[in-house]
């Protein structure tokens, strides 16, 4: 999955995204020394944090000298570019972010927001984790997940399509089959 980074061996980027939500627990988690050390240990060099509407501002760092380079921003119109250049994506559980990352074939850890009342979003992340398309964690368990993950064991996700739905709708309405 990491073929894209072969040309740039020394730069391995982690991209953290919370989408349009406010998910301080995740931003705080990746802002901790423990998580950043674990990322360094796994060979990552750069950390980009898209913090959305959150209020917790992470500590910036230029990196080098055995530390991680850390940068953050609230929103960006070029999320797709960040995803494309990332070697690992850590994302909130929104279906948009999940499938955009999976379509790009990037290793993904989905962090479930445990503070949400109606937390149906964890359903999707857990199902896809059961099917080995991604890793699923909570803000508290993120470090262990990074430490224990085996990216080679992840299976590529084959995107589905709406052809069966459209076929059923056409048949229901009495449109002739193509």
């Amino acid at each position, binding site marked *: 999955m990491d073929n894209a980074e072969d040309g740039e061996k020394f730069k391995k980027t982690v991209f953290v995204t919370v*989408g*349009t939500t406010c998910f301080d627990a995740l931003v705080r988690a990746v802002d901790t020394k423990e998580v950043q050390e674990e990322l360094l240990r796994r060979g990552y060099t750069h950390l980009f944090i898209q913090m959305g509407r959150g209020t917790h501002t992470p500590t910036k760092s230029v990196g080098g000298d055995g530390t991680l380079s850390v940068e953050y921003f609230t929103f960006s119109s070029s999320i797709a570019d960040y995803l494309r250049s990332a070697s690992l994506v850590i994302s909130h559980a*929104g*279906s*948009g972010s999940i*499938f955009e990352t999976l379509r790009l074939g990037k290793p993904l850890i989905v962090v479930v927001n445990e503070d949400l009342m109606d937390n*149906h*979003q964890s*359903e*999707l992340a*857990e*199902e896809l984790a059961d099917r080995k398309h991604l890793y699923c964690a909570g803000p508290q368990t993120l470090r262990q997940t990074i430490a224990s993950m085996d990216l080679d064991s992840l299976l590529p996700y084959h*995107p*589905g*399509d*709406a*052809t*069966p*739905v*459209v076929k*059923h*709708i*056409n*048949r*229901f*309405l*009495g*449109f*002739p089959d*193509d």
Partner: protein
Amino acid sequence: MDEGKGCFSSCMASNLTATVVLIITVTVILIRVSYVIYWTGKPVRRTCRKSLSTLVVLGSGGHTAEMLNLLMVLQKDRFTPRFYIAAATDNMSLQKSRVFESSLDDTTGKHGVAMQFVQIYRSREVGQSYITSVWTTLIAMAHALWLMIKTRPQVLLCNGPGTCIPLCIIAFVFKVVGIRWSYIFYVESIARVRRLSLSGLILYKLCIADELFVQWPQLQKKYPRARYVGCLM
């Protein structure tokens, strides 16, 4: 005395007439509602050769992405004209559907078909109190009714969240009253793996949707009348 008696009996008579009229009306409505429910979910027998006006209800974020995936595959000449509705607080979805429609124009060169993009008031925003939401629900219903009267679609395509519920209920009422017969298709979001969303559950339980599609096999097991169609994303 006699006059009083006469008035009394005429009051009785008019009361009786009112009751009879009421009973007949309720019976007729009930028969009509059961007729509509009976035919809801029954596929059309005859071959359809003309295009159907279609209302596309856009959710937000992930919902809109799924709907656009569906529209990509849909035979555009059969489902035309198309009306797009999105929540008033959601600026992105209509923008995306506009981009989608204009990309069609570029490839097929079909101009002159009126596409409409409308925003609708939401009955309840996330975190809004229940007391004020009574008032906003009323406004949202009135607005939905107005839009439905204007568009009178033959096909409704929706995939949640709540925005589509008033529109689907009005479409159902239109069927009962005889204003417009329509077909309602609901695609449950891919994010729902184990339980239907509230919107999906309402349409399922009230038998309003002609077809309710789910994207995970577990859901189909739990709700047997739903149809499993695999993932849209």
